[in-house]
């Protein structure tokens, strides 16, 4: 799991152009939106594309998106639960 989280952090930094951040500076348990990384709605769409492009996973409902995109750890758990990580 920790390996997947580290990989995911690098991918998030790349797709969201968080050039001033390092994987170490991202708290995998912190909220991705508003607090924490302070991401916005476009970033959310970019994370959905990331899940589909890199892991072949699609979110089926908006509620599922809220749960999965809560933090880096919740994203990793979703990937692992679907055996894609």
């Amino acid at each position, binding site marked *: 799991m920790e390996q997947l989280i580290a990989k995911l952090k690098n991918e998030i930094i790349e*797709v*969201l*152009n*968080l*050039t*001033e951040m390092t994987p170490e500076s991202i708290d995998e348990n912190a909220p991705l939106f508003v607090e924490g990384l*302070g991401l916005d709605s*476009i*970033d959310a*769409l*970019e994370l959905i*594309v990331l899940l*589909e*492009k890199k892991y072949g996973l699609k979110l089926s409902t908006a509620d599922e998106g809220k749960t999965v995109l809560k933090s880096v750890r919740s994203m990793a758990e979703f990937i692992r639960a679907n055996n894609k990580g």
Partner: protein
Amino acid sequence: MDNRSIISSYCIIRNKQVNLNGSLFYSGHEEQPAGFFLELYKHCSMNYPKFHKMDTLCRLGFLASELMLSRKKLNERYRGEDIGLILYNAAASMESDKAHQKSISSRDSYFPSPSVFVYTLANIVIGEICIRNKFFGESTFFIEKKFNPSLIHQYVGDLMARDTVQCCLTGWLEMDGDHYDGVLYLIEKSTPDNHGIVIFEPEKLSQIYLQGT
């Protein structure tokens, strides 16, 4: 046409150099636009994380506006509704258009990027500058074949003369491949304090535009 308006500030970004109000402000090294814009951003110790998500057209406009406006304190002198933003270029949002087209060109790897797609309109740069500076006045982005000082003077002058805006950021922001050319002017009404400095007229716009070319 309003002859009482003045060009109170201007900024030119081209050829790895920045000219601010007639003086060389910065001379950089990076050849590529994105590299030079990041170099300039860091040189000025700017801290605006959204900069890194912008396309190159927005970065060009953002940097020029930041350099011009950082000491102007426009919001202390004007209501946001009274500050306009009128921009022009020839290539529209071509760089983001090409990046988006590339991301959807393959049926087997069809992954359009939302963060690229949102910049496939030239006027997004207006939004970026307005959000940053809390400008709420008249705004338009015109696509013209080339820099046209008469058109800038006519349109912005009319907005000023009709009191649609009291102050206007305007100019040419071109971003096409490796070519970038940003020239922004701040137009304000003449007051006893600033009377006698650069008058807002097509010839002056043209003279400033040609500086450093």
